């Protein structure tokens, strides 16, 4: 298993946001965590990328225990997150933002970085049109694309996507999701957190349902999509 999270517990002061979350991601999969507001999805993501410290449990990446490893070192192992919302550098140009994505790489100025840059531009043609524009002046959708593109520039083994569809128009959401599938088909493992459960479950190999800091259900994406309880809670179905 590429990522193995066991009994993860995280607290903000006295309030426990994660009360023992366990799940795993296999190499090559798209796995999604779905859940309502406050279920602990973003906290889980921030803990995996190292921005939050744990009070219990463990995180293993590729067999190595990374529970207490600082964030910036996890990037070198191949975990990279596109943060929720506007996690881009607003005062840097699109190009500089993408360059920052490659910051942790050892082959910074190599052909490989240029190739990856080209690859990102092909995935997101909008970014190519705006290379010298400041990140802060992009639209919400473009910023999201930039955040994903920037994360890809680090050549992650595991890409963490936190709410990539947040605040986007439906047409753009569909586009972002098909790009996520494409990235995955090219070999990058994806862990996806979404409120847009319908789309996420349809795309995911496996899914976990989070509720107030606990995993309450897991299964294949499609199966959960048909699960009456999940439908009632997240999909507005009968």
């Amino acid at each position, binding site marked *: 298993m590429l990522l193995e999270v066991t009994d993860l517990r995280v607290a903000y002061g006295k309030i426990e946001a994660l009360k023992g979350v366990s799940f795993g991601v296999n190499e090559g999969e798209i796995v999604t965590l779905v859940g309502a507001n406050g279920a602990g999805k973003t906290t889980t993501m921030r803990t995996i990328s190292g921005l939050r410290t744990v009070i219990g449990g463990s995180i293993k990446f590729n067999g190595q225990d990374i529970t207490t490893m600082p964030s910036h070192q996890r990037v070198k192992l191949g975990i990279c997150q596109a943060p929720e919302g506007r996690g881009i550098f607003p005062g840097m140009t699109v190009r500089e933002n993408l360059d920052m994505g490659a910051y942790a790489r050892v*082959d910074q100025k190599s052909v490989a970085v240029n*190739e990856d840059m080209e690859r990102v531009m092909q995935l997101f043609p909008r970014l190519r049109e705006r290379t010298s524009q400041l990140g802060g002046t992009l639209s919400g959708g473009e910023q999201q694309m930039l955040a994903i593109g920037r994360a890809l520039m680090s050549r992650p083994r595991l890409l963490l996507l936190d709410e990539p569809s947040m605040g986007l128009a439906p047409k753009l959401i569909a586009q972002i999701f098909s790009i996520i599938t494409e990235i995955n088909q090219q*070999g990058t493992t994806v862990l996806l957190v979404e409120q847009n459960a319908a789309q996420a479950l349809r795309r995911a190999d496996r899914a976990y349902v989070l509720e107030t800091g606990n995993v309450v259900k897991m299964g294949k994406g499609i199966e959960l999509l048909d699960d009456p309880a999940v439908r009632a809670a997240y999909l507005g179905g009968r």
Partner: protein
Amino acid sequence: MSLSDAFKELTSRPARTVSGVGERVGDMPRVARWSLIALFVVSLYLMPWWPEVPLLGWLVDTPGTSFEGVITDKVVIYVLVALGLNVVVGLAGLLDLGYVGFYAVGAYTLGVLSSQHANLPWLLCVPIAVAVSMISGVVLGTPTLRLRGDYLAIVTLGFGEIIRISANNADWLGGSRGISKIAKPPNIGPLKFGILDAKPYFFLGLTIIIVVVFFLRRLEHSRVGRAWNAVREDEDAAELMGVNTFKFKLWAFAIGAAIGGLAGTLYAGKVRFINPSNFPLQLSILFLAAVVLGGTGNMWGAILGGAVVAWMPERFRNFADKRVFVFGVALVLVMVFRPQGLIPRKIRKERWLANWKPPQRTPQFGETGTGRG
């Protein structure tokens, strides 16, 4: 909105991509460029004689005080301090309200080593003083740089006061009487560092500034500079991109402190007498005002800001006891009309498109990674 949010808003507001003087000079042919830079530097070295130039002299001269004294005692030192503070505040985005502390550490180290407890020569004391300032930056930074925003500002504010009050109460630092007979720089050929002629001190200060500018320029455009940029823009995002944010913030603090300490030694070596009242909180605020006024994050802005803040009150001596008020009004006016400072930070011109060619083959992300190591 908290103080530091307001500050962040001010400092990270995206500047427009404008082609500034620097870029125009950069685009000139090599010979023209270097002769222009040489001319500029020479004219700076001739600054003590500026008041004798018609028009320029009327503009810059300081009535009631010697212009030479103003540029050596204040301008050169403020410019150096502003350069150092700009690293902390402008490049790394850390609001430091106690910068005078490092300035004091530099000055006191020179005082202690060359007069109070030992008789070491100036040339030996200065590197030690710079190192001690740097260490004090690391000592202050290590526990406090985990704080963010307003909390960091408050802690640094306290640091500045701690240094001053400690100096006031420590007998081995001369207490409130201070330290006198501090070593002066050694004479270099015709340059005699005495009381009569201030020019040698000015030349020395200007030379140090040029060296520091050169050093900072290299640093700004290096991997370190990029890391600072990212930290200032969004600390979490920087960490997620693999930047060791703590390490680079500490570096910013250490380098800033070293430059502040260097300015302190320059000051102490010139006036040759220091006491705690030379290092009030007000000075920290004035230093910060210099950086913000000049243009946070822009080295040339910091230089101009430092020079203006040092020189303006002297220029306004005609207004007698109202000069500080006039100075304040002038500062407010500048901030109203140029909220990003006199020389705002610019986005570097995109030169990469010109020499960037798309690769022959389209790679796939899943390919065996060369990206990690």
